[in-house]
């Protein structure tokens, strides 16, 4: 991403990379030993968090960095889930092959979404992507011969090299993809691409006036974001082992958006924290009789009022970083 003349690597960055690397290393180490402490349900939640965090990383590149809102990410998540599931269960491909191939198929669809995005902004883009998501979801629903329609798809546990992948194995696979995704987002956001995306969000006129090819970056951002989301979808399908078109509705798209807003728009750490919050907080509130949804809603409002830059932004300020 960077090159010899780019001085992004020199001092001058807003925070030292060292401490962030240490933090990331600690997080990964903790995530690696976590299965030893958790019961089955806890492990399920942690796997779900990792999967959602992958989506949030991809969506944050698109929305947090490039400023392009999307309400079709649940549908892309669903396409990734179905593509991986069908390639594995019907075509008989190895899981580790169908996962990236399914994601690449979804990436092509994500790039197609970008075509209207080139002309639309803000709420107009939101509504257009909303429509696109509905089309994708209904296509899955109606294409019964392939997808099983509204009846959904039940999936056998995935195998890797002849070995059945259990809950712990799937967790580590999701974690591995999350770490890869982190590495990719980190590189993409820091260099030339990240700055170009941020300037497109800040001012398209300013970006164009500096010679930044806006159309190319928007398509790239949608495509990369779709790839992340589809990988997560392919993992999700085998976490729940039963997928249904209804699961990939706009409510989930809004859930993805709320993850990155709660965590912190345009931050990598915020994607992880936002996914964790979205999965864990409702669980913590389950004890509250009758009203977990209500309390979760109030918590959301409070986070936004008191931490407009999200949990990660708040933490950074708290730790004395600018």
């Amino acid at each position, binding site marked *: 991403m960077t090159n010899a*003349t780019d001085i992004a690597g020199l001092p*001058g960055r807003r925070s030292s990379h060292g401490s962030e690397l240490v933090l990331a290393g600690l997080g990964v180490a903790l995530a690696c030993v976590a299965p030893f402490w958790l019961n089955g349900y806890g492990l399920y939640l942690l796997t779900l968090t990792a999967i959602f965090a992958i989506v949030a990383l991809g969506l944050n590149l698109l929305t947090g960095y490039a400023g392009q809102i999307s309400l079709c990410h649940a549908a892309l998540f669903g396409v990734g889930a179905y593509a991986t599931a069908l390639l594995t269960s019907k075509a008989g491909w190895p899981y580790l092959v169908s996962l990236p191939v399914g994601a690449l198929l979804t990436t092509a669809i994500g790039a197609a979404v970008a075509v209207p995005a080139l002309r639309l902004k803000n709420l107009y883009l939101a509504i257009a992507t909303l429509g696109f998501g509905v089309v994708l979801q209904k296509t899955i629903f109606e294409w019964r011969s392939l997808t099983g329609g509204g009846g959904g798809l039940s999936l056998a546990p995935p195998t890797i090299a002849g070995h059945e992948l259990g809950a712990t194995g799937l967790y580590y696979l999701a974690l591995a993809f999350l770490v890869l995704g982190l590495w990719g987002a980190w590189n993409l956001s820091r260099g*030339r691409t990240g700055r170009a995306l*941020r300037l497109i969000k800040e001012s398209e*006129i300013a970006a164009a006036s*500096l010679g*930044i090819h806006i159309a190319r970056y928007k398509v790239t951002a949608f495509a990369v974001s779709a790839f992340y989301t589809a990988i997560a979808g392919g993992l999700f399908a085998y976490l729940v082992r039963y997928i249904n078109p209804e699961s990939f509705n706009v409510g989930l798209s809004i859930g993805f958006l709320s993850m990155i807003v709660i965590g912190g728009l345009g931050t990598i750490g915020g994607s992880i924290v936002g996914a964790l919050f979205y999965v864990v907080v409702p669980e913590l509130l389950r004890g509250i009789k009758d009203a977990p949804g209500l309390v979760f809603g109030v918590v959301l409002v409070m986070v936004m009022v008191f931490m407009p830059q999200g949990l990660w932004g708040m933490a950074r300020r708290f730790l004395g970083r600018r």
Partner: protein
Amino acid sequence: MLEVKDLSVRYGSVEALHDVSIKVETGGLVAILGANGAGKSTLLRTISGIVKAASGNVALDGTAITGLRPEEIVRRGIAHVPEGRGILPDFTVRENLMIGAYVRRGQDVSPDYRRVMGMFPAIERRERKLGYTLSGGEQQMLAIGRALMAAPQVLLADELSLGLAPIIVRQVFATLDQVRRTGVTVLVVEQNARLAMKFADYLYVLKYGRVVMEGPRETFAKSTDLVDAYLGA
């Protein structure tokens, strides 16, 4: 030399520019005056390829650049300081400057970086500060510096005085004068006529997308009433 000939631009059925012709001699500082909506920003955006011309052409040193993509026009040596500046608030001054060299991938831009920093001591002192900590005037200087990172022959500047205190505007214009003295041709768009007359050596007045008046600074200084009448409308 930057030459615009019979340029017309339409936004749908609205004609934003009508047969506009202007000339900017190499090393000159030319100002385009005009009220809101006169077509000033459209003119700059058309020169830099962001807006497509309906007819007419733009030439840099005799070579037509009409219809080229913005990135190609920046590469040919025309940089644009956009209206509203577009500084990244959560990136450092250094990073903001580096975006200006976006089209110069693979080139050594560190001499330009040092040169720009040398031109703007106020910015240099804040090299590691984030964009949002800068004052309006400093952000405007940063936007000019960023455009200079493209190593342009021609600098287009859109409404530099917007939202700045008069004394700061004067400093910003003094900077432009300094930029011109380094051999960069400057074309500014401005609502503040008095200020523009102080620095520019040739001026145009745009009204409803047409050039209604043009001449060297001396002529303009003698007909301030006429200029005011055009701008006041």
